[in-house]
């Protein structure tokens, strides 16, 4: 076996070459008539509508995700003292503090490996894992976003309980999930294997409210800014 700089490089789609990377919801998008764009190696759905509806959902599974674990003090330092249940957004990167020893970093996919390496190099006690393919992601938005979410989870997302910049882990559609409030848009991350189910279920939950699918590129801040 050859010496490998990172023995867990096989977790990361960033190391793939000439490969079409797919999200779990590809068949759903195809069935809904979406076209596809190639973005950074990912086949990303492109919908005609840009979110002018009471509620919308976007497949953000291709967004980069890093799982960070370590001693409390190290996570404190890395997250600049972020409180439990809070998230910060700096330079296109979200940092979510889920527990004293566990944080999650969300970033544009091309930056995943660089960020992961940098985090891992901060301390030997830190374990930073590329979980881009570990969690599928759906972003929910629109003025009825909370009504859609309330049909999906018993987590309390009332504005005073779950304000902008808050994050939590809990059950959404009966799956363990991570939820982030990105200024009245909710990121919902679940196991990759649940991605298709989560997409179908969330759209079903919002069906009576007029939910529509939209392109991730239209709603992800980093991509909109780009």
């Amino acid at each position, binding site marked *: 076996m050859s010496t490998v700089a990172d023995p867990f490089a096989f977790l990361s789609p960033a190391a793939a070459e000439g490969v079409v990377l797919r999200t779990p919801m590809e068949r759903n998008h195809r069935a809904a008539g979406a076209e596809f764009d190639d973005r950074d190696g990912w086949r990303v759905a492109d919908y005609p509508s840009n979110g002018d509806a009471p509620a919308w959902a976007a497949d953000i599974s291709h967004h980069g995700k890093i799982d960070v674990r370590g001693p409390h003090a190290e996570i404190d330092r890395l997250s600049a003292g972020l409180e439990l249940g809070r998230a910060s957004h700096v330079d296109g990167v979200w940092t979510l503090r889920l527990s004293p020893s566990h944080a999650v970093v969300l970033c544009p996919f091309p930056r995943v490996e660089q960020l992961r390496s940098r985090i891992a190099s901060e301390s030997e006690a830190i374990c930073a894992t590329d979980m881009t393919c570990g969690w599928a992601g759906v972003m929910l938005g629109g003025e009825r976003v909370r009504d859609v979410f309330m049909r999906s989870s018993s987590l309390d997302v009332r504005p005073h309980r779950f304000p902008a910049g808050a994050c939590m882990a809990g059950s959404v559609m009966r799956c363990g999930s991570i939820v982030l409030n990105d200024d009245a848009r909710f990121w919902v991350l679940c196991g*990759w*294997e649940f991605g298709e*189910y989560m997409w179908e279920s969330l759209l079903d939950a919002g069906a009576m409210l007029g939910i529509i699918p939209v392109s991730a590129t239209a709603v992800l801040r980093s991509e909109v800014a780009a």
Partner: protein
Amino acid sequence: MAERRLAQRQGELIDRSQEVTFQWEGRPVTGYAGDTIASALFAAGTRVFSRSFKYHRPRGLMCCSGQCPNCLVEVDGQPTVRACMTPVEQGMDVKHLNAWPSLRRDFLHLVGRLTPSFGMQVGFYYKTFIHPRRAWPLYEKILRNAAGLGKLDPDHRRTERFDKVHRHVDVLVIGGGEAGLEAAAEAAEQGKHVALVEEGLALGGQLAWGGPRSNGRLTALVDRVNAAGVEILQPAYAGGVYEGLLVPVYQGRTMHRFRPAELVIATGSIEQPLVFGNNDLPGVMLASGARRLVNQFRLMPWEQAVVLTSSDEGLAAALDLADGGVNVLAVADSRRDADGSTIEDAGIEYLAGFQPWQARGSTAVTGVVVKRDGEHRTLACDLLVMSGGSVGQTALVSQGGGGIRYDRDQRRYVPDSLPEGMRVVGAAAGSAAAAGAVPAQAPKTGCKQIVCFCEDVTTKDIALSLDEGFSSLELSKRYTTVTMGPCQGRMCHRNSGLVIADQLGLDPDSQRVGVTTSRPPHNPTSFSLLAARGYEPVKRTSTHHWHAEHGGKMLWAGDWKRPYDYGDGDGEVDAVHESLGLIDVSTLGKLIVRGPEAAAFLERLYPNRFGDMKLARVRYGIVCGDDGSIIDDGTVARLSEQEYYVTTTSSGAGGMEQWFTWWNAVWKMDCEIVNVTSTIAAFNLAGPNARTALSTLTDFDLSNEAFPYLGAGHAQIAGVPCLVLRIGFVGELGYELHLPAAAGEHLWEKLMEAGEPYAVKPFGLEPQRVLRLEKMHIIVGQDTNAESNPLEAGMPWIVKLDKESDWIGRYAIEWYKRRGNRLTLVGWEAQNGGVPIEGTQVVGADGQPAGRITSSRFSRRLGKAIGIAWLPVEQSEEGTAINISDPKGSTIPATVTHKAFYDPDGERLRS
């Protein structure tokens, strides 16, 4: 429409400017917007709305508040709709339930006339329709057609959706009467987020139907509640109170699952009927029911009314009815010493101490006989109002974990201890004003005295149950079904207790009769609401759709969908043995264990030795519980000095993560555990041509010299970064590829493409089971159970009792070793072509069970059935002949073996 409607008045619910026409029994009926089906029909002259459940007695409006069963009808094909709670809609199609051929002439009412001689009294289904036995099919057909309330159309398909919403509020108030409105307003004015639930047609409770005097107070309260921003759900009802104060509220087609910080129960009280002969005749109504018709729907069709009462509530009702224009002839008060002066002042005859004896009439009440001592009076009337006092609605208190106690002064149950976060207000909390005299039990008459209106349970039925030994309310309930109908005891719990107390000679206030247990749902609730949008999480691998699109029979395997086979199970097995097969094993659990103490951590968790593992090697391991039993198995690959990659069974992934994490929390070792099951797709390419095919996709040296069996390496395959493990569950040369899930479909397609020259076949779970069995590889949970230890499971080589560190299960396994094996897990080969069924017994020489078959399949390659079994040690020697039971009654002879059936030396695996 110029029928008997009273003059318009504040507080009425009808809108006389809008007429609504609907169908009743195929004939058009016109009411007003705001009418219920019941009030519109009543206005149009209908007096019989239904037939009772068992005896098919004609029934009319009684409570007008959704508590009793008397007005259950079918609306637009949906049965058991309460007409008194359902607003009329244009074009509705309303029909009767439970009568044949018509409501007016119901053949089945003969049943009531035939009891007790034919035997429809309580418990009849244990005593009748059993002789002659051969007639049962006929009896069954008759009973099935006669039983139940309403019919469902099996071909009906719902098109409307039902919804489910999770709600959080600071305060949830159940009950929109005076006390509930007050509590809601007060909480909202303090800035709390408040929701109020009211099941009635209007807010206000008694304020709404109690007459014009209460209109001002009601208006003020409603204005206050609205101004404070209370969210009102109405009509809606609370289905129960569950643990943690979870309250499902049903409104229309939506279930709101409320989790309030504080729950206020303001469910008020329910007026109780009186028990006397023919007390269920049309025209016999609760006082509150009559008042609702008069005050809310402005109906007053009666010529003359008599009021029967046992409480001050009844006196107040009589005066209100009189004020409303009802000609109240007399009030018969069962109390001898109550103050009836207000009645007499109103010019109504007051009969103190007179008990109701019997209502007169056949399809409608024409009069009533009341008695006191030896005197009796017969009073003509077409409205007989009964008011037996009221009882607090405390069911939700009990369901929510609160206690109730009997208050002798109030003669009712009141809340006692309440769980944190629950408060009870208003009449539900108790009310001295509502206290009533205990109604004396009705003397024996020749006619039925209904105790439970829903289930047609009479005083005689209850007496019979007591005679037969069902000597408490709980026991009598189970035999008679009293309190088990749609009202769930609201109308009959108290009276059934009083009847039992009377029959047993008990003091009714002693409460020795007991109470029944209240359970949700609190109201009859449709299954559609309970099911609503039911979600069943399903796990799919990254190649799920490829399998489905290429003939894979997708079945549940735990919470995953996996292909059983692709339509040619035998061919798939052959492909693996003869050339090339590919299987998706992405469902395997996968954990990273990394850190300075990762090796030491694994040494403590496994009976295996891992501390001496070389880099780039993979080893099979089992995990044992504290009791030494096998709880999971998998592989461990060492990828660096401090980094290990662990696989588990598919169904054990979550459990193993918990197991690992738990023990690390206990030991606090310097290592991290990360569950990457979702992140990684995994495929097993197996068969004699595996190396050749795979080599076309990678520069990685796959030769046996460079990459021997049980090696682990990193390779770029078809552009995809992979961890390659040279292991094999299916007994042929094989490579297990672990890669990022997002690249799964890409690589799968490339592997299939590369395998085309070798006639590659995808193979599913069933062929895999045959293949692994040929190698006698166990499946944890199938070949093992909660008592299987590795020594008896034929894996003593895995257990390293000489390890320095302690490890989970060590103590137990050392004990097993000292004790010696009693059972052994062995292989067997059938000798006569038979294929035993998994789970069947091995039969000993004495004909008794002597072991169990855990796995069994027919191997075409070997031409015989093979499998695995647990046998007593004394019967487990190599070559021992055993007999396996066969469901056809015979046995299948087999021979014990300890060696793999196919390629026992593993030459093909290590090639």
